[in-house]
């Protein structure tokens, strides 16, 4: 069994886990953790909720591992579980959603097929390179893309950078394009 990032074989690990080596499941968590967390963080407003849902998705995956059909697509199977968790979450939270939450829902519904496409486009080997690509961003750009995490609101960031709020989204969009390019450009080397 080869488990170098390039030759990661989820099926053989699944077989080992099912064969009793349940600790091997950690390898799957490590390989797909960022992907699942990213998938959920893209769709859920509060990051903590995304993290909780990601754990739930892995818990479900672990308990239902025997239902995974070896030879199919483990990543897709795992993401389908994450999606199921997400739908549950939306269903639970929709009752207390305000107008803007509902608008986000509407947007999410409108772009659902495209979100699926965008998610499928993110190749696993590219996801692995994300941190390396982020590390290459200039300081200000990194500041820009992690501002939300640091609790800085866009208005404050716009003021600090002497930009209009929409310009922040514009720059973040460009930063994401740069990251995507960086992740994809390095594919042949991997």
């Amino acid at each position, binding site marked *: 069994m080869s488990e170098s990032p390039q030759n990661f074989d989820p099926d053989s690990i699944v077989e080992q886990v099912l064969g009793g080596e349940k*600790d*091997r499941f950690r390898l799957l968590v490590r390989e797909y*953790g960022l992907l699942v967390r990213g998938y959920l*963080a893209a769709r859920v407003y509060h990051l903590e909720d995304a993290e909780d849902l990601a754990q739930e998705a892995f818990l479900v995956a672990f308990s239902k591992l025997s239902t995974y059909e070896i030879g199919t697509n483990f990543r897709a199977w795992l993401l389908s579980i994450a999606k199921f968790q997400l739908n549950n979450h939306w269903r639970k939270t929709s009752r207390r959603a305000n107008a803007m939450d509902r608008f986000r829902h509407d947007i999410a519904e*409108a772009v659902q097929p495209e979100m699926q496409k965008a998610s499928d486009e993110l190749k696993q080997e590219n996801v692995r390179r994300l941190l390396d690509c982020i590390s290459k961003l200039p*300081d*200000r750009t990194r500041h820009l893309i992690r501002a939300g995490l640091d609790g800085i609101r866009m208005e404050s960031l716009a003021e600090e950078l002497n930009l209009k709020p929409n310009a922040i989204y*514009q720059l973040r969009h460009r930063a994401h394009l740069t990251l995507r390019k960086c992740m994809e450009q390095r594919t042949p080397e991997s």
Partner: protein
Amino acid sequence: MSNHDKDPDFLDLLAAWHENKTLSPTRKKELLERLEKDENLRLALAREIEMAGLTRAAQAGEPRWLELEEKLGAQNETSPDFESEVMKRLQENLPENQRKNIFNFPNLAWLGIAAALIFAFLNLSNQEPLEQGVAKLIRLEGTAKPMEKERILRKDEEFVIEEGLVEMAFRETGVHLIGTGPLKMTLLGNDRVFLKEGEIKLVVPPQGIGFVVDTLERKFVDLGTSFVVQASKEGSKVLVLEGEIAVGGRNDKPSQLMGKGSAADFDRNGSVNLRSRGPSGVPELSLPSMTHSENSLAGKIYGIKEGTFPVTTEKEKIKKRAIVRNFIPLIRSGFKNQARFKNFVQGRPLRFTGIAGTYDNFPLRTSLAPYSVESGWLAWYSGKVKAPKTGRYRFWGYADNNLLVAIDRKPVFEGSRYDSHFQNELKVPRKNHPFLPCLNARAGFASGKWFEVGDEPIRIDLLFGETSMTMTSGLLLIEYQKDSYEKTYWGQPKWPLFLTEFPQEKQLAELDVLRIHMEEKIQGSFSVSQDSIWQVASDS
């Protein structure tokens, strides 16, 4: 570049998605209708949201999934080869082109975080027994010894390399350490090393706060930061890159706090020498000869007389007293109104040698003393210059805090920090380029408007200085419209420094050091070119 990044609908949708931007019902309806019709917009939005989620998760740090850990059981159920497989994957996760930037400090910080994240993920909460070691060796390069097979470092282990580089991550604290040989240190535990000889850089994540580096002279306690410690026979040195550390004596002497940019030497006799204090350890160029010739652009440095204002700690009051504020009427009057100069003191006459790097000691070196350090300083260069070629030019650059250039008495470039008086009061048109890296990230790269230059000399006025205290840095570059320039990794053309004389040999060497520093540490750059020197007119 996406054709949506200037689309207001796209940007409003992002604002609504990420920050619940308040929109009117009509606007929401419009946006949903557009989404319904425009497949390209839907895809661009979906891709943006997907990437935003991924970067958000990647930067958030690894969560601790206790429930999942409980399900998976104790780590000692791990199959025997789990550790080696994990280490193998760690190695494979560090691509070659990541290695080449190993001494790029901003990147190092991220590498550190990345390694810490990977490390944290591997551990999923300290499940491996402590006897398996306190740290993991991630990398060992350029050493005579081949890579050790067992890459776990144990408590009280003495780690020695004669040469090369080592990278390791501490198991429980996530502290990331990079050391260069010759290196001799002892791993005293999960949160402590004793450095006998060599240089180490540490990036300490929140869970590692309190990590201690002992040397013979001092104890360095991390308070959430990144710092470098060096130990040798002569003593130890420390440089704080980010955050703050507490420096304590070996005999329980009281601790002293050191902040970002601080560096200090501690010798074996107990004496301390605070070496420098800069925004990012950027080299400060030495001051070339200030003797004027007919080819030099003359300048003066100004400060406010000491004792002009009563002492205060109120930031707003200090800001209002800044000398730079007193230059606003001068600029507005086309550099004629010097009414406010009566409270100024002057240093030695200046000779313009470009704006590049840090200027923390500039007032001292130009004998601007005594002056009110709290009110900052400003250098004003003025004279007539002739462009190397006729045509259109524009300035690029930044300053922390103030930088302004006027041609024929009208400002054409203002590259000051976002909170500077120049930027907020003069409103000189400027284009911001947040993507381009600055020596101090808060400075903000900007460009000015194009201006036309003919055969005749033109008047130039150049103002550069500090709002308060002494941490100053800047860069002033010039672009000729018809020239093309080599570009940096981030697409910044390596525009030449704006200079009125070609640098002397020593200055040229120092500029080269600065350029290398910028290329390695912030991936910025500049060039120095004989062809882009602006000649000072003889009647200047």
